[in-house]
């Protein structure tokens, strides 16, 4: 007769407690606004557990609906099933307590832009970094979703500055699977390599970028937008036709004006001012057309009016 061998499975680490955790099995996102929710959704769709921070229950609920909206849009465009949506949502947990980031090996700060002036306060973000350092292990990576602010400055008051790094997700173009990875002055090779692995884990391409205001994407886009505003102001062509040349002629997914409306004119103006402060070159001064829209609070999709007019779903009204 064959002898039956019964071995406890726990010794092989299959019980939840002793299971070896793989890298990036759980990540954190501070701030689940427009950009934070893109990051949270992207990671959860790849099976990564995500904890996001919002200061109160109502903002947590808003964030959940924002995420759900994104997933529903994917279903509507045949890219996801209801079951996959449920599975993705079950990976995402909202919190108002930094302690819940304990155990995350990677946390991304993505606090929102101020609705009124388009700013993201550097002091506030430094504070987030400090709070994160107090709950995370020494090896955990702290990243910031940066475009014009330098990550070295955000990390300057931390004990372990080598674990800080900048990331830039291009959340304004749907499904643009590329990240700019920004090394600060003190970022270690370990941190950089791990973040590259994270990009791969969420099926994103990445480019390393030296720490600089505007990186590649924002700097190039804003200059293009400023010039497009010049063409518009000189009466050379209409908003629609300028966008058409860029989309049809150059194969851009959407034109510069449409992109600016999606980003928010208030942010665009602030980003240009940041670049102007940093580089001092007149080409970064926000074009008069942009300032006019900004002062009229025509911020784009968010206010239903910018270069184009929009309905409630964010579609252009002709």
């Amino acid at each position, binding site marked *: 007769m064959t002898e039956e061998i019964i071995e406890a499975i726990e010794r092989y680490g299959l019980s939840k407690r002793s299971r*070896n955790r793989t890298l990036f099995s759980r990540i954190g996102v501070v701030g689940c606004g427009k950009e934070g929710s893109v990051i949270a959704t992207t990671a959860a769709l790849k099976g990564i557990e995500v904890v996001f921070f919002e200061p109160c229950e109502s903002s947590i609920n808003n964030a959940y609906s924002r995420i759900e909206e994104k997933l529903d849009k994917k279903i509507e465009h*045949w890219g996801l099933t209801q079951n996959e949506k449920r599975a993705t949502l079950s990976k995402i947990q909202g919190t108002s307590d930094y302690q819940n980031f304990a155990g995350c090996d990677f946390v991304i700060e993505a606090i929102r832009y101020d609705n009124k002036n388009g700013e993201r306060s550097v002091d506030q973000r430094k504070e987030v970094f400090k709070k994160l350092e107090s709950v995370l292990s020494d090896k955990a990576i702290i990243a910031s979703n940066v475009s014009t602010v330098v990550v070295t400055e955000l990390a300057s008051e931390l004990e372990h500055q080598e674990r800080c790094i900048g990331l830039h997700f291009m959340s304004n173009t749907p499904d643009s699977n590329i990240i700019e990875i920004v090394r600060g002055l003190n970022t270690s090779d370990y941190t950089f390599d791990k973040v590259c692995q994270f990009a791969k884990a969420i099926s994103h391409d990445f480019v390393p970028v030296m720490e600089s205001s505007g990186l590649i994407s924002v700097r190039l886009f804003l200059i293009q937008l400023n010039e497009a505003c010049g063409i518009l102001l000189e009466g050379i062509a209409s908003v629609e036709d300028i966008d058409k040349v860029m989309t049809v002629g150059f194969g851009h997914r959407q034109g510069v004006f449409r992109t600016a409306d999606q980003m928010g004119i208030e942010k665009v103006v602030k980003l240009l001012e940041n670049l102007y402060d940093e580089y001092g070159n007149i080409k970064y001064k926000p074009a008069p057309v942009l300032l006019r829209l900004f002062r009229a609070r025509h911020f784009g999709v968010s206010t239903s009016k910018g270069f184009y007019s929009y309905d409630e779903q964010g579609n252009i009204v002709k």
Partner: protein
Amino acid sequence: MLIDEEVISMIEECIDMAPLHNPPNLAGIRAINELLPEVPQVAVFDTAFHQTMPDFAYMYAIPYSLYKKYGIRRYGFHGTSHRYVSKRACDFLGLDYSKTKLITAHIGNGGSVCAVENGKSVDTSMGFTPIEGLMMGTRSGDVDLGVVTYLMEKEMIGSAAISTLFNKHSGVIGVSGISSDMREIDKAISEGNERAALALKMYEYRIKKYIGSYMAALNGADVIVFTGGVGENQTGTRQRVCESLAFMGVKIDNELNASSRGKEVLLSLPNSAVKIVVIPTDEEFMIASDTLEIINGK
């Protein structure tokens, strides 16, 4: 195949071809690698049995250079199951496997039909990916390529979404709008749901067409084998498919069929030109015995 880094990267490269299957398999391999690094792992490829298909059956009529460049051809799937049930059917019926022509219908949530001649697969309904052929639970099966490009343009979607559309939103669930589970479809039909009835008719019609075409491919067959979740348990589907093949002498014992679920059974009447059997598949057994052979270095 004994799994090593090379095999893992090979499976990774094939994710595009089998998006529903390869990622979870890889996750399993990686988990075992982490938990039991000393234990050898074996991959049994579901395409292996179909490697005997002749070139005129596995080639697509597209530029030959693309076959050379990307290996685009029909590979077939469910090979482990088709191999097991075809062999087992012969043992069960006392026939010589090396001299028998069988049509095996593995039908369930995923489904394929295979033509087996003298122990070798000579054609099968799945192709380059597991989407070709029969209508399935969530997969469309055969579809005019014109529909694919037309939809991509009209719905403004890319390759990932169109793949999800045909792999996960189509088939029985896509047509019925209810479920990919045949038991729920049966329930909906009994409640008078027309789309569920349509989905079932389409599902069965496609099986009949494939069996018919393989009957031609084999110049006649000795045995039709039903297996898989639906093949083993859905007595109604078996009955309707077989009755619709009566023109070529297929005769099913309806009474026996109605009472047979999930067990090996000969369902054809003695005067049937083709024997009809149900053989519950046992892919695990095949995989285990293949694994043993590989580990023993045979």
